[in-house]
């Protein structure tokens, strides 16, 4: 279901501020399988507390075009946790555009306020929507866009150390397979749809994001479904 459409031309300007970019060699090698990802991520997170770069895009001084230079992030936002049933987790949503000529793979994400961060997708399993980690990361073919939105793919933020209030700004880093990063500053918004549409009864709610779900290093498939075992939803034309 990850249909995409071609993008003809490189745009001159991004849509929203909050798009930040920095090259970071330290993230190379995060091309691990999904099952191992969480462990690596958990370890990596301990080291992540770097300052956020200014908004102006920076060109990789080394000259090699980093994947981050091709990835545009538009209209990011994060669901507020104030008043939520479970205030230890939330999700970030945004629109991703690969404006370059090469494939871009988002392999992970990190945020200071989240002890654990994963890329999730929703999938229908036995007539039930469940969320699960995106196998192999989020692959964006050249010139393709992808929406991360409620009820669909999202960046899952867990083990939050702070309450997220509407209007707060959350700094998030998207990690790309070539080791480059894209920094995103996303406003926190109240989620105005019924909560159950997004997280809740069939997804994180029932099978427990808190304890037996995300809290446990291998239980990221939200209800005993292997990542991508049916191949569904992972075709990127």
């Amino acid at each position, binding site marked *: 279901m990850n249909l995409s459409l071609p993008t003809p031309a490189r745009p001159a300007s991004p849509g929203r*501020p909050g798009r930040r970019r920095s090259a970071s060699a330290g993230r190379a090698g995060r091309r691990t399988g999904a099952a191992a990802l969480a462990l690596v991520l958990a370890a990596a997170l301990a080291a992540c507390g770097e300052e956020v770069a200014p908004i102006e895009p920076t060109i990789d001084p080394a000259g090699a075009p980093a994947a981050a230079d091709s990835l545009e992030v538009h209209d990011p936002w994060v669901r507020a946790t104030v008043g939520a049933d479970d205030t230890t987790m939330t999700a970030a949503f945004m629109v991703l555009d690969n404006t370059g000529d090469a494939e871009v793979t988002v392999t992970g994400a990190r945020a200071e306020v989240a002890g654990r961060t994963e890329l999730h997708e929703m999938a229908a399993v036995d007539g039930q929507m469940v969320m699960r980690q995106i196998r192999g990361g989020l692959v964006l073919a050249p010139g393709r866009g992808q929406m991360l939105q409620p009820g669909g793919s999202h960046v899952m933020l867990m083990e939050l150390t702070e309450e997220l209030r509407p*209007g707060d700004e959350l700094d998030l880093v998207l990690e790309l397979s070539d080791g480059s990063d894209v920094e995103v500053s996303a406003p926190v*918004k109240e989620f105005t749809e019924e909560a159950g549409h997004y997280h809740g009864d069939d997804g994180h709610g029932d099978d427990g994001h808190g304890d037996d779900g995300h809290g446990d290093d291998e239980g990221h498939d939200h209800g005993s479904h292997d990542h991508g075992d049916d191949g*569904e939803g992972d075709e990127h034309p």
Partner: protein
Amino acid sequence: MSPSVGRRRLLGYVGTAVAGAAAGASAGVVGAQALDDDGRARPGAPAPGADALPRVVPAHGPHQPGVAAHLSGVTELVALDLLPEVRRARDRDALARLLRVWTGDVESLTAGRGAPGDTAPWLAAVADLTVTVGLGPGVLGEEWGIPAPVGFAKVPPMRHDRLREEWSGGDLLLLVNGADATTVGHAVRRMVADARPFAALRWRQQGAWRGRDQQGRPVTGRNLFGQVDGSANPRPGTDLFDSTVWIRDGAWAGGTTLVLRRIRMDLPTWDELTRAEQEASVGRRLDDGAPLTGGHERSDLDLAARADGRWVVAKDAHARRTHPSSHGGRRIFRKGANYEVVTPAGSETGLLFQSFQRDLTDQFVPIQQAMDVSDALNEWTTAVGSAEFAVLPGFAEGQWLGHQLLG
């Protein structure tokens, strides 16, 4: 059309969402907001000669663009009040957070994209959309640590006023203008929803304006009396406009102030007048808006002109009473939205009269007071609502609305 939008319309996001698990199966594609019915990308550039096609009005700049932008078809003015707890605590931080949330909404909605977290992004469209945000008297002043612009105050009561609470006041303003009511209404609902943790709706007032001719060329437009209304306005882009409208100094530099008057217009009694009487009430012709003293629509009135021993422009003619020369050169910049509210009980017609000025007390008030003392139009017009807002300065990409005051 800005490059990012041209692209945006071509791209066509396709989400992975299954909108509502009930859609079942694995597909349930949503989010192709930029596609036409065939699923093809729409051309980004307007067709040649299609001046009338809605465009993107860039959101960023030293001023909020909606003030000077030529009026597109539909205007909504929306007032919100801060929630009691926010107001009680004088919670500047909460106000700043609301403005941050709105900033993202304005940026995406005006570009024709759904707002972040939009529950119906398909309703967003490229539609000349502007969203102008202002602060009301209740959040300005020492208690809030937000200085009011010089001269900002409530409009004093007028003898002819019949103000109603439900059309007056408000802590926050959204002035939304765009090509069509669907897009405008969506922007309003979205931004009111996003304000929910901070503020609640007080009133919404809707109106329309025909600001283009058949060829799509910008024209002044007419109010419901049939008058060309706005002819003598200072023209955006001129020094006169800038000095009339924009606050020059201090934290509000680049902002302005807005007075909204909801003015009921009595069409049945207006219709009883002869055309000559109607034209005399303002001092301008009905067909082309030219002064009764000659010239064309943009010509100034010759207030000294006499014929047969009488003033050509009557003593109580609206354009004489309000003319800059009657007010030591003081001017305002006016915009309008015609409204007709139809209920089972009947209809109310009128004008959502918007006056922009640097200094509300110095510019707007004397003109309004002169009208209140005497103005031929008073016989058929009655202000039934009134509200004042300080319009925030503009913001650059990466900044947020109001950062100059709350940052």
